[in-house]
């Protein structure tokens, strides 16, 4: 079986070798990197621009962005025909290719996020390690934790005021370097598509910018949603009044903090949404107005074959509806959560319509290809490039966040700065 044959239906004249080679995982890839970049930008808004209202969500989105990092790489490994050779991108990078930058940009970004987290949590590492050291009867778990936190301090045990001040400054510098790198990380994901001259739908210089804006939109929406969910869980645990869970805040404090954070975040979400949608519409109008050779087939894709995906799922349900929901006064948590879900759907559909939509027509401009996503994983290929592979990628950041949260507690820790 030829790769791609299992999920491609050809219609009219399609070149014999053409299949939908870039499938669901390549939809997941910009979606996941978008979430990484967006989450980081959100946390930087507090660290760099001092948006105090975002303080509560800043630490959260920073750690979440760290948890999302490996999942930006996962879809690529799932997609590669030779995943064991993936390391070659770092070994022999061919920089005339947009993908070659991935290894370098991604590592740089990972280093920045990692370092920033180290500075934010250094006080916590030192305090925890010292507390464990002081403990007399240590269990094996305690001993392991003491070792772990001691290593994590990287030998920097000074938590005096001067040292803390330096940390704060370092976080600010890292966050401000991080914003352009995050934008670059995602902008170049857009460049990967935008620079393919062989594809009429992809080739536009607007593609990187559109990708960055929708990345920030999706990142903020996911952070908001996850924040709401975790806060609800905390409220629920608090209401159980179990002694097992000790919180610093009271129920009312939690509630008011939550509403406040969500209202503030929603404002930034709306701003970036306007930018993203404007650019996307500009692209569409420009294509229609200039109507070059490829417009005939693009029009039939956009307005006929993919009409439901583009205009109903992406623009109406994914953009217009949450936009109205967020604009309405007296924001409620439930409404914000629902709007976030819709925004995520909208951005996902945008990725889908770019990646799958771009392969919905043959480069002969005389035929169509229809994508049927493999659902049941009856082979390695239909798992990797099917629904379950995509779900694996989608679930991983939450599992990672849960694990990382064990080491780097996001809630109930006094900020070191």
């Amino acid at each position, binding site marked *: 079986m030829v790769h791609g044959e299992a999920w491609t239906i050809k219609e009219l004249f399609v070149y014999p070798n053409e299949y939908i080679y870039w499938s669901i995982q390549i939809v997941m890839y910009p979606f996941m990197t978008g979430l990484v970049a967006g989450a980081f930008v959100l946390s930087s808004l507090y660290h760099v621009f001092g948006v105090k209202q975002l303080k509560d969500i800043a630490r959260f989105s920073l750690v979440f962005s760290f948890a999302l990092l490996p999942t930006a790489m996962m879809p690529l490994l799932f997609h590669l025909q030779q995943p064991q050779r993936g*390391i070659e991108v*770092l*070994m*022999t990078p*061919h*920089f*005339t290719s947009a993908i070659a930058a991935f290894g370098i940009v991604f*590592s740089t970004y990972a*280093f920045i996020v*990692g*370092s920033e987290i*180290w*500075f934010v949590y250094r006080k916590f590492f030192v305090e925890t390690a010292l507390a464990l050291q002081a403990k007399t009867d240590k269990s094996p778990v305690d001993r392991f934790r003491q070792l772990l936190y001691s290593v994590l301090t*990287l*030998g*920097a045990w*000074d938590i005096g005021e001067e*040292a803390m001040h*330096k*940390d704060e400054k*370092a976080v600010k510098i890292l966050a401000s370097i991080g914003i352009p790198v995050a934008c670059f990380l995602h902008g170049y994901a857009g460049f990967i598509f935008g620079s393919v001259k062989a594809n009429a739908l992809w080739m536009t210089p607007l593609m990187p910018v559109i990708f960055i804006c929708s990345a920030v939109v999706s990142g903020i929406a996911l952070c908001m949603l996850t924040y709401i969910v975790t806060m609800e869980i905390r409220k629920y645990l608090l209401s159980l009044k179990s002694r097992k869970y000790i919180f610093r805040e009271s129920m009312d404090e939690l509630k008011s903090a939550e509403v406040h954070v969500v209202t503030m975040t929603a404002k930034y979400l709306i701003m970036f949404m306007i930018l993203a949608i404007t650019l996307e519409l500009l692209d569409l109008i420009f294509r229609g107005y200039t109507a070059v050779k490829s417009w005939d087939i693009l029009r039939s894709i956009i307005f006929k074959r993919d009409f439901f995906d583009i205009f109903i799922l992406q623009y109406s349900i994914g953009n217009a509806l949450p936009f109205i929901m967020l604009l309405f006064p007296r924001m409620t948590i439930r409404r914000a959560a629902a709007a976030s879900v819709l925004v995520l759907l909208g951005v996902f559909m945008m990725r889908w319509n770019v990646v799958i939509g771009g392969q919905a027509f043959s480069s002969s401009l005389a035929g169509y290809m229809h994508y049927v996503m493999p659902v049941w994983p009856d082979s390695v290929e239909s798992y990797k490039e099917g629904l379950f592979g995509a779900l694996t990628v989608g679930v991983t950041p939450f599992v990672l966040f849960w694990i990382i949260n064990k080491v780097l507690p996001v809630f109930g820790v006094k900020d070191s700065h």
Partner: protein
Amino acid sequence: MRNHVWRPLYVVLFIVAVVLLVRKVYVPKDFGIQDRGYMYGFHRLGSEADWKAFPVKYRSTEYCRDCHSDKYNELKQSPHAVIPCEDCHGPAMNHPDDPPTLTIDRSRKLCIRCHARLPYPGSGRANIPGIDPETHNPGAECVLCHYPHDPRREAKK
């Protein structure tokens, strides 16, 4: 540099060093920028030799003539002179050593590649004598009546 702020950078530099070390071992020695520059010629030089060493299967009609000159001359006198031997007889490879005999495609499907009539003005196909495979003795092999090395003659019985 007794400033703790640089600690993460040391970790980064260590990782970079490890990557560069791995690179030294992992990348073949002949990998580099070759004749066509970095954009088009960045590759492992040995790959070109790999492709040159790929086994040849079709040897061309001239190869067949060395032993089968009778058949060669017969074919060259006929309207089928343009057809290379290996189109019907299959790739010679290292015949007669390996394989000792070739599998000849005598099927009707082979003949109608050219002789199924297609009414396309402006293409070479219109100039070839054609039949309608659905009505012209369907099911019968062409070679029962037609002699492929010289279609002007009837099949050798």
